[in-house]
């Protein structure tokens, strides 16, 4: 195994004179050994692909290649599904208490190896180490710990006595929270007695492959978890596989639609967590400073690569100027740059393709007449970067008010009455999340009850917990992940 050295660190001038921080870099070596090339994890072993096509994953902050990995073929998918099928009988017959203990073990090993996973996730994805360390990896461990406890309590979950697993689950996850999305998929599937074949995203396969090692350390029976890497072709082969009983997908609405169409007429159970265009509504009595923090967290967390990001700011007209002034002051202090620096707020855009998508949509925003603003900040010379960006004068018809940008770009719209705020918030085919900022409790409940969104954050934003169901209305998908609700997607109920 040859180790890749990441000697080239991205550099950016820290923003804001008063807040100039000295560099506080985490060591990329803490990510552990990264192989030069990876195969799949099937039946408890790392195996070569039947094909010869290899893909590369790069560090988006440096554009350096981290590793090569296999483009999964139909035959690879077939092998993985067969391994999962073979493992299903014993795994589903295991007493729930024993299944749960494997998941508890996994949770504990993730906690033990959290620094390694946090660094690996940061360099493969581009997100700041502060977020992987304080949010992603702790949430991953919490998710396994939570569902571990369900494994022997399914009789009490409200689905009738002795609910049965579905069989083999085919799971396809996105690149924005690679290991966390893996946990959201694998933990409930295994707790309920299913076996899985999971395909990580083609720009972020490394933590999933590292997770395979964790499964081995935990002594998880062979074939219960299988990881097949590759791009959308591999994903399509997995979701279409005739011996898969359950498909779980998190990603874009167009792909979700295609999968739903593909599965029409089959008996496969499907859960979809798709795009969003969340409204973050700020009423005139909102605590401005807290609201500004919430807006910043809502759209700049994880570079805005968040399906539930608060990408549409709906501000009451009377406080527009005051709020935007405060927001711009706050944005000017955001530090964009080296994801491994512990002081970094906004890391690298995950890929060149995503950067192009963000650029295309923001160009459209300007072309359609919205006014663009970004703080003065210097971006590193290599890697994929995008300045935190604000659009004012946005109309509901603008593309930047309708389409998911999936980047650090906030579209600001205004309203006069609560009813207008609700109408504008709901004026989208999506319905994943929403935010409400007001000091008036009755107004929160009035607004929350009218918003067509699966998660509503009031006076907070982008909070997640394994006990809390997450998922969308309308074209943001169906099914819930998290909590008791999250079990249903993996049970024959």
């Amino acid at each position, binding site marked *: 195994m040859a180790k890749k050295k990441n000697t080239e660190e991205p550099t950016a001038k820290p923003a804001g004179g008063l807040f100039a921080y000295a560099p506080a870099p985490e060591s990329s070596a803490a990510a552990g050994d990264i192989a030069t090339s990876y195969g799949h994890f099937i039946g408890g072993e790392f195996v070569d692909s039947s094909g010869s096509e290899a893909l590369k994953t790069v560090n988006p902050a440096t554009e350096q290649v981290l590793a090569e990995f296999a483009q999964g073929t139909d035959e690879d998918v077939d092998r993985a599904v067969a391994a999962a099928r073979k493992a299903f009988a014993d795994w589903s017959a295991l007493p729930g208490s024993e299944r749960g203990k494997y998941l508890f073990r996994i949770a504990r090993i993730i906690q033990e190896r959290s620094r390694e996973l946090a660094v690996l996730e940061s360099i493969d994805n581009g997100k700041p180490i502060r977020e992987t360390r304080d949010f992603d990896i702790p949430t991953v461990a919490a998710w396994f710990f939570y569902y571990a406890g369900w494994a022997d309590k399914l009789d009490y979950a*409200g689905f009738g006595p002795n609910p049965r697993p579905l069989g083999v689950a085919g799971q396809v996850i996105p690149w924005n929270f690679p290991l966390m999305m893996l946990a959201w998929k694998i933990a409930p599937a295994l707790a309920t007695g299913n076996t899985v074949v999971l395909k990580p995203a083609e720009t972020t396969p490394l933590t999933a492959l590292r997770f395979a090692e964790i499964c081995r350390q935990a002594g998880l029976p062979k074939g219960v978890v299988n990881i097949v890497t590759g791009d959308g072709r591999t994903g399509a082969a997995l979701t279409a596989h005739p011996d898969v009983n359950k498909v779980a997908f998190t990603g874009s609405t167009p792909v979700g639609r295609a999968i*739903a169409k593909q599965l029409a007429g089959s008996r496969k159970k499907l859960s979809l967590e798709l795009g969003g265009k969340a409204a973050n509504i700020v009423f005139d009595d909102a605590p401005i400073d807290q609201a500004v923090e919430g807006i910043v967290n809502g759209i700049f967390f994880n570079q805005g690569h968040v399906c539930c990001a608060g990408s549409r700011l709906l501000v009451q007209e009377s406080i527009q100027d005051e709020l935007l002034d405060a927001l711009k002051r706050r944005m000017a202090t955001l530090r964009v740059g080296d994801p491994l620096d512990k002081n970094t707020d906004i890391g690298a855009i995950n890929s060149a393709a995503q950067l192009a998508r963000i650029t295309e949509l923001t160009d459209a925003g300007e072309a359609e007449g919205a006014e663009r603003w970004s703080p003065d900040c210097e971006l590193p010379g290599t890697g994929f970067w995008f300045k935190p960006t604000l659009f004012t004068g946005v109309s509901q018809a603008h593309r930047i008010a309708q389409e998911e940008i999936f980047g650090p770009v906030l579209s600001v719209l205004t309203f006069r009455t609560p009813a207008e705020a609700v109408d504008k918030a709901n004026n989208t085919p999506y319905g994943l999340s929403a935010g409400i900022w007001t000091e008036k409790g009755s107004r929160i409940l009035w607004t929350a009850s009218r918003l067509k*969104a*699966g998660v*509503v954050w009031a006076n907070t934003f982008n909070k997640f917990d394994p*006990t809390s169901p997450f998922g969308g*209305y309308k074209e943001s998908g169906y099914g819930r992940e998290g909590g008791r609700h999250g079990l249903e997607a993996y049970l024959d109920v």
Partner: protein
Amino acid sequence: MSDTTYARLDVLKTYKLYVGGKFPRSESGRVYEVTDAKGEWLANAPLGTRKDARDAVLAARAAVKGWSGTTAYNRGQVLYRVAEMLQGRREQFAAEVSAAEGIGPKKAAALVDAAIDRWIWYAGWTDKVAQIAGGANPVAGPFFNLSTPEPTGVVGIVAPQAGYGHSLLGLVSVIAPAIATGNTVVVAAAADAPLPALSLGEVLATSDVPGGVVNIISGRTADIAPTLASHQDVNALDLTGAIAADGPGAARALEAAAADTLKRVVRPELDPFAQDWTNAPGTDRLLSFLETKTVWHPMGI
């Protein structure tokens, strides 16, 4: 004393659609013959069209706000009122079910009784479902966090066309759970057995169910169901009665059409003909057309 040398001629009913609380004829102006199990003519039913289905979706959408906004207690009383009205017309429905399904009068009457009781079952659920489907979530942080079920919106229903008791009991078993939770529905009535469905519209119209909450269209499944499946303003699709093996009215085609707008879809049973609608309904259908909304708020002083 009148001269009674002739038998009195019965007054036949003109069967009509039920849309937006009114009883229109089909916009097509056309009807089709409905026969009993032996092929004897029973009535002419309106041949509902795609346009009729679209009109019904408009009515259903308009009714969502009011119906989903009523209290659960109120919805429960309205559903109970449906049972009361159905009870009063027991004999009429027994005759229609008997003719529609080709079963004896006693069995048909028992099926009507079961349909009445099913309304009662769901009437009692309206103000309890939130407590079994929602609740507080103990998140690891200083937050109030509550999940509550909400209605999905407009549900398109392909009414049961097979199984013991499908014509009325099956129909009630798919409509009642959807509206109990605050959804509104557009129903494609069983093509070969539409009369109990069209008569049910008359019961609903006199049961305090607001117009538009339930809309019932008779006609060809292959005309009406695809319109519901592809309609942008329908949120969910119940394919229970999509029993055609192929063609535009088959479950596969309808589910594929529904995928374009990511509708929630309830698939038909593996063998719809083996379904016995007298079986206990459980909570599956009640929970099928709900969205879970989770609200967070920080705790603090």
